[in-house]
C-alpha cells in the first residue's frame, strides 16, 4: 500500500469492483426471478380455479 497508490491509474482498479457488482446483480436477479416464478405459480393456479368454479 502506501505511496504506490498515488501512481496507479485509478481507472484500472475498477475491474474488481465490476466483478463484485456483477455478482451482486446476478444474485439479485436469481432471487427476483425465483420470487416471480413463485408469484406467477400461485396466480396461475388462481386463474385456473376461477373458470372451474363458474361451472
Amino acid at each position, binding site marked *: 500500500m502506501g505511496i504506490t497508490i498515488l501512481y496507479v491509474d485509478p481507472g484500472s*482498479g475498477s475491474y474488481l469492483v465490476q466483478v463484485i457488482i*456483477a455478482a451482486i446483480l446476478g444474485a439479485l436477479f436469481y432471487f427476483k426471478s425465483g420470487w416471480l416464478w413463485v408469484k406467477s405459480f400461485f396466480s396461475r393456479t388462481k386463474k385456473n380455479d376461477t373458470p372451474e368454479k363458474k361451472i
Partner: protein
Amino acid sequence: MPDSLRHPSSFKDPSGFVFPYAGKIYRQVNKAFAENYDLFIQTGLYDLLRNRNVIIRHEEVKENLLKSGEWYLTLLPEQISFWSYPYEWCFDQLKDAALLTLDLVKISVEKGLIVKDATPFNIQFVKGRPVFIDTLSFVKYDESLPWIAYRQFCEGFLYPLLLSHYYKKNFQNQLYIYPEGIPVDLVAKILPAKSNLNPAVWLHVHLPNKMGKKRNTGNSNLNFNKKKLLTLIDHLRNVLLKLDHTYTSAWSKYYTETISGNEYIEKKEKIVHKMLQQVEGKTILDIGANLGYFSILAAKNNYSVVAIDNDEQSINTLYKKIKEQQLENILPLCVDISNPSGGSGFANTERNPFNERAKTDAVMALALVHHLAIGKNIPFDLMAEYFSKLAPQLIIEFVPKEDEKTKLLLLNKKDIYPNYSAECFENTFLKYFQIKERENINGSERIIYLMKRIGNK
C-alpha cells in the same frame, strides 16, 4: 508531423488526433489503430450507429494531409456548428448523453467491439440531440474483461447526475473543475444521508470508494463475461432512468406566472418578430433566454439559436420542450453571461472559452439589461463593448428604473445608478452601434432596439 498542427484538445489518445485544415476539422487515424478502425467499419457497427444518428458522420479522405509518419487514414467528420461542453449542459442533457453512451456499449458489444472512452466530453449536441463524436473510441471486445471505462462513466456521468438528483442543484458545472469526473471519494463524502437508501449508491459509489483504497490485484481470473457486462449496463441504465431533477426555481415559472397571457408578451413578440426579419445571417445568441419563448420564435424564423441562461431549471425545461417538439435548431445551455466559461484544460487551450465559441450573427438580449446593470453592477459601456464583440447585430430591450421588475432589483440595494436611463443607455451604446430601430412596448416603459455594429470591430 509538427505537433502544433494538432488541435490543442487532441493529444491524449495514441489512436489518432483531430486537426484543423483549410477551415475544416479533420481526424487522422494512426497506423497503431488501423485494425480497430477497420473492424469498426467492416462489422457494420459504424453504419448501424450512423443510421441511428448517434455517432458523428464522416467521409474517408485517402490523403495524408499532414504528411504524418503515423498516418493510416484521414476522416472528414460532419462539422459541428456550435461546440458546447458538459459543464454548460442541463441535467437532462447530461442524462441523455449518459444513456447514449450506455446504448453505444450495448450495440457495439453485439458487433464484437466496445467503447473504451466514456467521458461526456466525447459528446456534442447536433440538431438538438446528443451525438458521439469520437470515432476512434471503439476497440475489439475481449469478453473476459469488465468495461474499461466504467470508472470514467461513473465519475463523468453518474456522480454529477446523482448529486443533482439529491440536491436539486446544478452539479454538471462541476465538470469544469473536474473534467475527468467528480472523484469518487468526494462524492462518497458529500452525498446526503438519504442517498444511502438507494442500493445503486452503495454499488457504484461506496463500494468503489472503499475498494479504491486497496491495492490493485491485477486482472487475472476475473471470471467476467458478456452476460455480466450487459447486466451491469442495463442496471446502470435503470439507475439513470430513475434520476430526476425537477424542482421549481424562481425563474422557471417566469412566463406562466408573471407575463403569459397578458398583452405585454404579445406586443413584445410582434416587435421582436419584425426586427428578426431584418437580421442578416443565420445564427442568434439569445442571452437570458429563460424558457426560450423568444429563442423558439427565432428558431421558427429559420435561425439557428443558442439559448443561454444562468437558471439551470429553465434551460432544462427548454431542453425537454425542444426534445418533445423536435425543434432541431435550438441549443440550450446553462451559461451565466456575467461569468461565462473560460478556456480550460492543459495550457488553457483544450476547451475554448465561451466567448470564442459564441460569435454569432446577432445577439438577442431581452429583459436582461437591468439584471446586468443593477443586479451585477456592469456598466453600459462594458456591456455594449462585449455585445459588439459577440455579434454585429443586436436586439436589446431596455427596462427603465420605473419598471416594477427594476424596482424589485433595487428593493434591497442602495440606488448607486444615477446614469441608469434610456438616454444614457442609448448614448453609450451609440459608441459601438447605430440604432436601426427603436420601438416602445405599449403599456410599459420598456423599449426594444435593433442595432447594428459600427465599422468592423
